[in-house]
């Protein structure tokens, strides 16, 4: 499917409009150069790279002990899964065992993180369609309230609210503090109750439906060809979830459903994520119910930054993040630092579908579609 670039077209009927990198709904620093005919988009040139921080090079200069808390900064909205991808790669290449309790704790953290990330997505996406002063801000403030509760849990667990450093090669750095499980259960109950409120507010909202149904359709073929993953892929009718397809960190121990919608439009992606909310809560409850006893790490506590050494080898570990497949390819040379590190960001692959689906839509739909893709630019640009 060729992308039509219309940059430089001098016709008087067309208008070139710059959306971003500083724009209220750019979700970070994304720049889309839109070519418009009236209100209709006829061409789009997506420019990324404004948030490039040499993350992969940075990974080569930091040791295996240091880097997990930096890995958070690739996808700062779902930092737990980014860390998990990195330590999984280290453990894969270094053949490091992870105790059962640590694996379950990782699942708990990842699922709570998914809930928090989806909360932020729901709020910002609705804001894209309703505007900061419009209807969407209401949902934004509700969703941020729930995310805040989850971040409180993370703060009690790790001491940090956004970038955690919870994982380390061989296990987790922290165990659950006293009383944390009870607090977590209460929060999950509350979030679940409020999910009903969101659905009551949005599912039958006629204005919400006309803005989302049939908008930004990603066909099954296009989704597979571009390599999108996560809720986008499942919203386009492909039943692929790494937690089921290639279970890691004991995901095979848990009972959950993988939602699949076939429509491929914004509303389908919304439905997929709303079900994922509930499934994540179910998984988190199962972890709290049956958390095994035992050590939280197979390695001794951190005493020096260079104490983890990984033998020569290479490997690719992938986890199902909130936005899709987060992968980390690691080449080790026997030292305390990786020889080469490569990230596969879910947002980057998902975002590359935009030039294929944007031509032909109205300007207002550009932001709705971009919001439904849910990109995090820390992960796109790395």
């Amino acid at each position: 499917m060729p992308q039509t670039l219309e940059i430089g077209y001098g016709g008087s009927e067309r208008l070139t409009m710059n959306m971003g990198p500083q724009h209220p709904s750019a979700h970070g620093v994304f720049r889309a150069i839109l070519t418009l005919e009236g209100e209709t988009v006829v061409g789009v040139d997506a420019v990324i790279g404004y948030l490039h921080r040499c993350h992969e090079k940075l990974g080569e200069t930091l040791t295996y002990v240091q880097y997990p808390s930096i890995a958070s900064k690739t996808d700062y909205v779902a930092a737990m899964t980014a860390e998990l991808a990195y330590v999984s790669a280290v453990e894969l290449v270094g053949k490091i065992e992870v105790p059962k309790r640590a694996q379950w704790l990782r699942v708990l953290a990842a699922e709570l993180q998914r809930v928090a990330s989806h909360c932020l997505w729901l709020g910002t996406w609705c804001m894209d369609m309703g505007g900061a002063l419009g209807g969407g801000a209401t949902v934004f403030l509700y969703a941020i309230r729930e995310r805040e509760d989850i971040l409180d849990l993370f703060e009690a667990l790790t001491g940090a609210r956004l970038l955690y450093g919870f994982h380390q090669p061989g296990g987790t750095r922290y165990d659950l503090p006293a009383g944390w499980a009870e607090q977590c259960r209460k929060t999950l109950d509350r979030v679940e109750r409020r999910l009903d409120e969101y659905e009551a507010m949005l599912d039958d909202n006629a204005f919400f439906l006309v803005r989302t149904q049939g908008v930004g359709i990603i066909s099954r073929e296009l989704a597979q060809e571009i390599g999108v993953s996560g809720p986008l892929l499942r919203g386009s009718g492909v039943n692929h979830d790494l937690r089921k397809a290639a279970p890691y960190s004991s995901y095979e121990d848990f009972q959950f459903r993988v939602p699949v919608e076939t429509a491929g439009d914004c509303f389908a992606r919304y439905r997929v994520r709303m079900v994922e909310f509930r499934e994540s809560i179910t998984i988190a409850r199962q972890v709290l119910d049956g958390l095994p006893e035992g050590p939280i790490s197979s390695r001794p506590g951190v005493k020096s930054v260079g104490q983890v050494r990984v033998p020569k080898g290479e490997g690719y570990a992938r986890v199902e993040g909130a936005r899709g497949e987060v992968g980390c390819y690691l080449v080790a040379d026997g030292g305390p630092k990786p020889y080469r590190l490569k990230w596969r960001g879910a947002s980057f692959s998902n975002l590359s579908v935009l030039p294929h689906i944007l031509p032909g839509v109205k300007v207002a739909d550009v932001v709705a579609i971009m919001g439904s893709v849910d990109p995090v630019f820390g992960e796109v640009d790395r």
Partner: protein
Amino acid sequence: MTLPPLAYHALVGFVVLNVVIGMVTYVTLLERKFAARMQSRIGPYYVGPHGLLQPIADAIKLMLKEDVVPTTADRWVYNLAPIVFLVPCVLIFATLPFAPGLGVADLNIGVLFFLAVSSLEIVGLFMGGWGSNNKYALLSAMRAVNQIISYDLPFVFAAFVPVVLAGSLQMSAIVAAQQGVWLGFVPKWFVVYPVIGQLAFVAFLVATLAAENRVPFDILEAESELVAGFRVEYSGMKFALIQLGEYAHMIGTSFLAALLFLGGWLGPGSEHALVGALWFLLKAMLVFLVVTWVRWSFVRIRVDQILAISWKLLLPASIVLLLATAFWVAARGGDGV
């Protein structure tokens, strides 16, 4: 008191103008507080008790802001636009009687004057969008023209239903026609007039939302795609004037809705002009809060969807409604109900 008519009108006009500006200032606080409640927030709180001085602080802040004019802007058009926008928005209050005998001018074509003047705001709006020489502003101005042309027609037709029912274009006569009660307790307001009244009220409210550029029809502001629409380049007092005009238009339309459908100043004790004015204010604020409620619970719809709603649904429906009302009134003997 014997003032020459010109001086009398000038005096009353001055008073009304200031009351309107004061009201606009405080209505923003009302809206913000109301929205905050809806969103489980507190809203403005720190300036004065419960944030009561916040609007004043905002006004002072806007006056002290630097006034930036883009170098590529069409200076004359750009500088003139806020004034051209504001004047019709304030002028609509000229024919509004706030209570019997309390108003600038109770014209015999009051409703017509109101509708005609309120649609003039588009001139200032388009001047702002064009003069800014900004693509967002231009797109927004383009949308505004589309939208206002499409929604002024249903707006007028829906507003003419009470006019036909009352048999007069004069605002005070329309209120007078709503006097009395049915069955001993139901007030004879046009909103409770069987079937016609409710349909017309709904059509009027929807058209009002669009004419005021409020969510879900605020495509010309559209901050998520067009940043702030036609006023993206305005700052300081010019921005404040535009904001003032928008809110004045909104309040004026709320007053019109209260007058046409909710019996205006009628209510217990409305023989006294001031009590009547209070009733009128209450009803207008009720309409305003309904509009605000809609604003904070819906998403914005797309420009093509907005046009489709107007031309395919609202316009035919309001024409049919107006014709039906006219036939009904004619069948009952002609001169109003």
